[in-house]
C-alpha cells in the first residue's frame, strides 16, 4: 500500500515525509560538506590543542562559549513557548508547537556539545561525573542542560505519538520504526486521556526547567568576580534574551518551511502577526533589561566596570554593540510596531535581525569582559580562527540538517492537534468565550456535560 492511495484532509502535512525534491538533496550535500569540514576542524583541534582557535589570554572563552549560550538561548524557542502557549490555551499554537519543540531538541543537542568542544581535555570529560564538584556553576549547568534536554525530548516525543501512530497506520518502508515509536497508540479514550495528562504534567514541569537552564548559564558568568559579568540581573536578562532569540528563530523556521513545504494553509498570516506581537513585547522587555544593566554600570562608574563599558560603547567592540542595538531594538521595534511593515516578510527580516543581534549580544557579554582584565594587561582584539568559524558553520548546518531529517520522518505540524482543533476546539473556544461573558447559557451546561463525558 503506497501513500498515494491514501487520502487525508491534512495530506499536505504528510507529503514531505514521502517526497523529496532535487533541491533537497543538493542542500543536504552542501550542508553535509560544511558539517564535515567543521568536523575536520574539530579533529584537527583535538590533535593540536586549542591553539587552533583564536583564543588567547586573557580572552580564554570565545566563539564556542558564545555559540553555547546562543544555541541554548534559541532552544528556549521551543519548549518554553509551546508550553506557555499550551498552558494559556492559545488556540493558534496548534501548528506551531511541533516546530518549536523540534528546534529545542536539535539545538540543545548542538549547543550542549559546545562546552565539550571548548574543553582543553575532552578525553577527561568523565571527570565531571567521577570528581565533579557541585559547588561549581559548571556542574549546575551540566545538570540543568541534561535535565532540560531530557524533559524537552520527552515533551517533543509524547505529543508526537498520535502522529506516529497515523504514520504507522499508513504503512510504508519505515513501518516497523513507527510501530516501535508509536508505543501501541490506537487513540482509545483511555490512551488519549493518558496522553493529555502526560502533556499537561510535562508542560508545567518543563517551564521551570527551561527557565532554570538559562538562569544557570547566566550564573556561570554572574557568579564570577569579573566586571561586566558580576550582576544580579543576569539570570532574568539571559532568560528574556533566550526567549527573544528563540521566538525569532521559530519565526524563521516557520516561514522557511511554510514556503518549502507549502504549509500556507496551516501557517497563516495571523500566526505570524501573533508571533510578531510576542516578538515586539519581548524586544521591549529585552531593551528594558539592557538599559537597566548599562545604566547602573554607567551611573556607578566603577573603573573596572567602566573599562568594559567603554570597550563596548566606544572601544573596539562599538561596531558590534551598535549593530546589536540596531538589530535587537531599533529594527524589530520599528518593523513590528508599524502596520505596513508587519507583514510576513517584515517579520522575517526582523527575526533574522534579532537572531544576529542576539548572537552579537552574547559576543558582547563574553569578550569585552575577558579582554579587559582588572590588572593592566594588554587588551587585544579577539579574532576567531578558521577552526572556530568552521565549527560554528558546522553547528548551524547540523541544525538545518537535523531539521530536514526530522521533516523526512515526522510531520512538522501536529496533525492530530490540528484535527482536534478542527473537531473540538472551535466549539470549545466559543463555549469558553461565552463563559467569560456575563450570564449563563443553556449550551454551556450541555457543553460541560459533553466535556465530562470525554
Amino acid at each position: 500500500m503506497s501513500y498515494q492511495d491514501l487520502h487525508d484532509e491534512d495530506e499536505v502535512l504528510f507529503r514531505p515525509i514521502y517526497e523529496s525534491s532535487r533541491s533537497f538533496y543538493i542542500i543536504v550535500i552542501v550542508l553535509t560538506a560544511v558539517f564535515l569540514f567543521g568536523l575536520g576542524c574539530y579533529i584537527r583541534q583535538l590533535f593540536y590543542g586549542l591553539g587552533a582557535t583564536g583564543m588567547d589570554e586573557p580572552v580564554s572563552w570565545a566563539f564556542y562559549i558564545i555559540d553555547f549560550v546562543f544555541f541554548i538561548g534559541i532552544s528556549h524557542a521551543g519548549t518554553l513557548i509551546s508550553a506557555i502557549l499550551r498552558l494559556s490555551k492559545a488556540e493558534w499554537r496548534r501548528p506551531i508547537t511541533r516546530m518549536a519543540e523540534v528546534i529545542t531538541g536539535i539545538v540543545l543537542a548542538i549547543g550542549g556539545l559546545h562546552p565539550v568542544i571548548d574543553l582543553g581535555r575532552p578525553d577527561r570529560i568523565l571527570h565531571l561525573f567521577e570528581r565533579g564538584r557541585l559547588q561549581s556553576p559548571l556542574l549546575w549547568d551540566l545538570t540543568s542542560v541534561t535535565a532540560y534536554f531530557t524533559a524537552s525530548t520527552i515533551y517533543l516525543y509524547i505529543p508526537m505519538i498520535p502522529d506516529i501512530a497515523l504514520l504507522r497506520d499508513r504503512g510504508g518502508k519505515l513501518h516497523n520504526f513507527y510501530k516501535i515509536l508509536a508505543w501501541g497508540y490506537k487513540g482509545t479514550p483511555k490512551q488519549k486521556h493518558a496522553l493529555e495528562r502526560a502533556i499537561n504534567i510535562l508542560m508545567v514541569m518543563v517551564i521551570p526547567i527551561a527557565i532554570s537552564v538559562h538562569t544557570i548559564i547566566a550564573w556561570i558568568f554572574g557568579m564570577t568576580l569579573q566586571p561586566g559579568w558580576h550582576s544580579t540581573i543576569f539570570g532574568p536578562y539571559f532568560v528574556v534574551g533566550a526567549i527573544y532569540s528563540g521566538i525569532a528563530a521559530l519565526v524563521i523556521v516557520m516561514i522557511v518551511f511554510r514556503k518549502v513545504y507549502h504549509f500556507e494553509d496551516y501557517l497563516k498570516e495571523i500566526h505570524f502577526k501573533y508571533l510578531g506581537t510576542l516578538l515586539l513585547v519581548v524586544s521591549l522587555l529585552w531593551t528594558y533589561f539592557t538599559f537597566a544593566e548599562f545604566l547602573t554600570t554607567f551611573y556607578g562608574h566603577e573603573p573596572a566596570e567602566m573599562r568594559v563599558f567603554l570597550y563596548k560603547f566606544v572601544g573596539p567592540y562599538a561596531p558590534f554593540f551598535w549593530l546589536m542595538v540596531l538589530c535587537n531594538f531599533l529594527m524589530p521595534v520599528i518593523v513590528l510596531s508599524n502596520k505596513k511593515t508587519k507583514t510576513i516578510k517584515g517579520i522575517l527580516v526582523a527575526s533574522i535581525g534579532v537572531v544576529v543581534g542576539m548572537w552579537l549580544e552574547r559576543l558582547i557579554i563574553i569578550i569585552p569582559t575577558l579582554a579587559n582584565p582588572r590588572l593592566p594587561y594588554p587588551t587585544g582584539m579577539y579574532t576567531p580562527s578558521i577552526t572556530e568559524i568552521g565549527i560554528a558553520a558546522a553547528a548551524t548546518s547540523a541544525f538545518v540538517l537535523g531539521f530536514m531529517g526530522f521533516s523526512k520522518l515526522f510531520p512538522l505540524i501536529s496533525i492530530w492537534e490540528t484535527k482536534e482543533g478542527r473537531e473540538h476546539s472551535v466549539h470549545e473556544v466559543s463555549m469558553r468565550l461565552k463563559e467569560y461573558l456575563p450570564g449563563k447559557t443553556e449550551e454551556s451546561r450541555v457543553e460541560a456535560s459533553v466535556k465530562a463525558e470525554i
Partner: protein
Amino acid sequence: MPKYGMVIDLNKCSSCQACVTACKIENNVQIVSEYDAQHGRAMFWMKMLTMEFEGDYPNIRPKTLPRNCMQCDEPSCIKVCPVRATYKNEVGIVAQIYPQCIGCRYCMANCPYTVKVFNWDRNEQPKEVEKCYDPDVSVRPKGVVEKCTFCIHRLQIASEKAKAEHRDMEPGDYVPACVETCPVDAISFGDLDDKKSEVSKESRDYRSFALLDELGTVPKVRYLNAIE
C-alpha cells in the same frame, strides 16, 4: 600547619626580571611558538607588570611589580573548578592537579589577577630547553591550566628531607625559586602565621598592600610600597 605567604618589597625591586626567568626554568613552563607568543599565549607564571606611570615627563616613574599567583586565602578559582583540579592545600597554597584538569578554563575566566595560563598547544620545546628540564616538576600536556604553585615541589622535597633527618621544617628550608634568585632580596617568603617571621612582620607593615584587596580574595602575596 604553617601558612605560606610572600611579601615583595617594591622599594628594593630593581625590575630585573630574574624572578621571571627563574620561575620559567624552575617550573618547566612552556616556551610557546612565535605565533602563539605574538597572539597573547605566552606563558609566564611570574610576570613583570607595569601598573601605571606616576607623574609627568620628565618627573615620571613607572610603577612596576612582579606578579605571580596571589595564592588567595579566598580563591575565586577553586570555587568554580568543576573537577577539583585546583584546590587549597593545608599550608594555604592554591595547588593544581594537572592530570585532573579538563581544560574548561573557568578558573582563568574567574581569576581577577589573570594569573592562570593555559597550554594552548602541544608542548614542543627547543632541544636546549628540554635538556634543562627541572626533573622535580612534571611537564604539562596541552589543554590544561597551570599557574604558580609557590614551587610546591620544593616544599615536598624540603619536608621529606626534614622528615628523613628527624626534625621539623625550618624557615629557610623551603623557598620558591624566585625568592632564591632575587638579586636584591626583595621577596621575602615564609610562614604568615608565625608572628616573628620576617614575612609576617612585613605583611603587617604600614607600607604593605595587596593587589585588588577590595575583592576580598585575601591574597597571601603582598607588596610593600616604594618609599618616595
